[in-house]
């Protein structure tokens, strides 16, 4: 009493088995929830039972992931660099203008993306966040009227951190599993929202100041996570 759908899922799992990251389990669970929502029948329950056994096997596989040795110092360096970035972000402009308060929007950064389940995944998450911030601050800055030197240094610092993280996280299966992470899509949506917000307001001063405050919050969260990972 099995149908094609179940076979389809099995095949996908065989792919995951080779890569074997814990995040895969999350995506599997998500897939399963969607499946039962749609189907609501016994077949899904049977599939879940089978998956349960596969999950246990995958958990055993997941625990054998070894951290890349040359990146041990990276977290130590990063703490200082993130502090510097925060300082430069403050230095760039003045205090938040009062008149921009009414235009403030709630963007809701997906905090779960930084839950330190596994160092490797958090590293990739941080790298992706840095890349997004780097992209946001790379153009259409004329109306913001910020200090050019501080901005240059801020971007330069971000770029250096991205390069270092890229050099560190080279395990392919970690990338693959991260790409299937559910909260990653939320992260992308978050930055897409900010990008759209800036475009809608034509990159005026208030929209820039609101974005800058939001990015500051982001960096502070990353700072906290980095400190936690260090200790």
């Amino acid at each position: 009493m099995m149908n094609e759908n179940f076979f389809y899922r099995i095949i996908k799992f065989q792919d995951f088995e080779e890569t074997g990251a814990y995040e895969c389990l999350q995506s599997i669970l998500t897939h399963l929830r969607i499946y039962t929502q749609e189907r609501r029948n016994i077949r899904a329950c049977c599939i879940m039972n089978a998956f349960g056994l596969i999950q246990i096997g995958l958990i055993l596989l997941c625990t054998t992931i070894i951290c890349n040795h040359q990146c041990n110092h990276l977290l130590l360096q990063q703490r200082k660099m993130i502090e510097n970035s925060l300082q430069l972000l403050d230095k760039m402009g003045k205090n938040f203008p009062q008149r921009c308060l009414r235009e403030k929007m709630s963007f809701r950064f997906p905090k779960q993306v930084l839950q330190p389940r596994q160092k490797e995944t958090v590293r990739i998450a941080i790298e992706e966040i840095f890349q997004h911030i780097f992209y946001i601050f790379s153009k259409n800055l004329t109306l913001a009227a910020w200090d050019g030197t501080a901005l240059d240094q801020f971007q330069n610092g971000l770029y250096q951190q991205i390069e270092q993280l890229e050099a560190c996280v080279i395990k392919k299966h970690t990338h693959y599993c991260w790409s299937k992470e559910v909260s990653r899509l939320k992260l992308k949506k978050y930055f897409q929202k900010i990008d759209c917000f800036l475009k809608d307001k034509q990159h005026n001063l208030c929209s820039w100041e609101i974005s800058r405050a939001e990015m500051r919050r982001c960096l502070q969260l990353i700072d906290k996570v980095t400190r936690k990972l260090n200790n």
Partner: protein
Amino acid sequence: MEERGQGQGWMEERGQAHGQGWMPELRAGRPAVRGAGRPAVRGGGWKALLWLVVAALPLPCQGQAPLQSPQDIQVCVVNTNFTLRWSHPGAEPGLTFSAEYKWSEGSGTGWQELPGCRNVPGPECDFSSAVSEYYDTHWVRVRAQRGEQVSPWSRVLEMVPDHEAQIGPPGMELQPTNGDIKIKISPPEANQGKKMWLNDLSFKYNLVFWENSSNSQPRSKNIFPVDTVGDLAPDTTYCFKVQANLPTEGKEGLFSPVRCLKTTQKAVNDLLCATNLRVLGLNMEFHLHWDNQYEQPVSYNVQYLIGYLKRLNEDYSGKWVGVPGCGNVTGTRCNVSSAITTTGFYYLRVQARAGLNRSCLSTEVKVDPLRTNEICPPGVKVDISDTLLHIQISPPGGPEGEVMRNNYVLSYRILYWRNSSSDEEEAKVKETKQTVATIPDLAPQTLYCVKAQAFSEAYNKSSVYSQEECIQTPGAKAFPLVILATFMAALFAVLLVALPLVFVLYQAYSKIKYVFFPSCQPPLNIEGFGGQLCTSPYLPTPEEPVENYSIIDSMITYEGNQMDCKDYKHSKQSSRDSGNYSNDDNTSGSKGSAETLGKEIV
């Protein structure tokens, strides 16, 4: 509806010898289903219901072969182009296909018609216009249609556009310059309004190039959006292709079309150019050194570029800035610290100028300040107190070096050892983050030597060791001895000084007393004796025995200020008597008896 569709699917499976445990029962139950009865199929009553429904369906189409649903549903996404593909076993003309889709964040209307996939003949269709949210889950299904007859729906394909999407080929522009090839890459969705890859700065471009000859190995290189490929043979045709990758997502893009072109000759300006650029840094003071091979005088101009500009999609050749203070250098080195801060990478290059119209740009050198920089040794000062060795470290860089120390998170490693000629003892190590350290439990009366180095754990960097500072520990029993010695010395000094002083003072006192306050007083009626006064009472006479005179002397009492000598019968005696005034012992002793004697004589 879905269950019915599934049932139909199973029927087809059975027909094509698919399926599993169903088969024997199906075969067994099939003829009976046509009738009134229902087979007692394993698995429960719902399957019986299914069969009932299944049995009912083919009735109107009796006589016609049932239409099969499409299989192998796939979605192929390149950038924002969505293509739905399927396969159908019966390749009949006049067969059209339609698709439906559902979107997780949609208005909950259920299955909607998929635009671009309505009554299409082919095994694929383009539905790019239907998808607008690339991070939401979409479901798609297809069915075949022949006239009035429709096949059951295919199985539902679930996809998230962002996951399925492939990176399209980037654009590539090549330009041969001076023996090298200058490449400008435009991102995959360069001028599109709607983008799948929002962040076009996160692409990493992989260039694959090879010589256009028979057996050449392709070389692969990671390049920036605007970059130069050097190290190529002149006057040779090379072929290039580039792909855009997203490492964080584990995605590799499609390759651009291959383009081949010929390199030019290298210009002969080489000797003028500065070569072998290297940066040396000490305590965050950076100096650029280069070599000069030109005989005639050359003037150099050092320029720098902030590292992140290379990551942008724009051409950065106009963004090189001259380093302040290195504008017109005649030597082969310059201080570039004003341009280089602690954050991020920098690129440096040297422009050499000779004469009016000859100039040459050197190759670039990349500087990572915190890695290139070397830390100077700290200063060390030692101090001894009891058996504790106090070490004071003055951090490298002084007050201006605060930024450097902050970024490196410096700690200090102190090496201390016993410097005795007899045995070579191993040096002990103490690590500290503070600038003061104390080493307890030292052996007494030994020479200890100390040296320190600064190191950064985060960057795995350490300075050389500082100069040695040696200090001798005091003796062990010295402490109580010192006390005793000090006490004795003090006592000695006191006695040495005090005793003579007391003696001198006493002598002075007695002299003064003798002169001004004599103990020998003349009698009160001295005028009655003829006025023979003792004028010089100090003249001694050795003729008479002292004792008698001493008795007489003792009759004289100390009264008032008058030094009166008792002048009885002999004026000479009186003078002698006076000589004996200084005899303190007798006067005081026999004072009482002298008085009584004096009274009797008188």
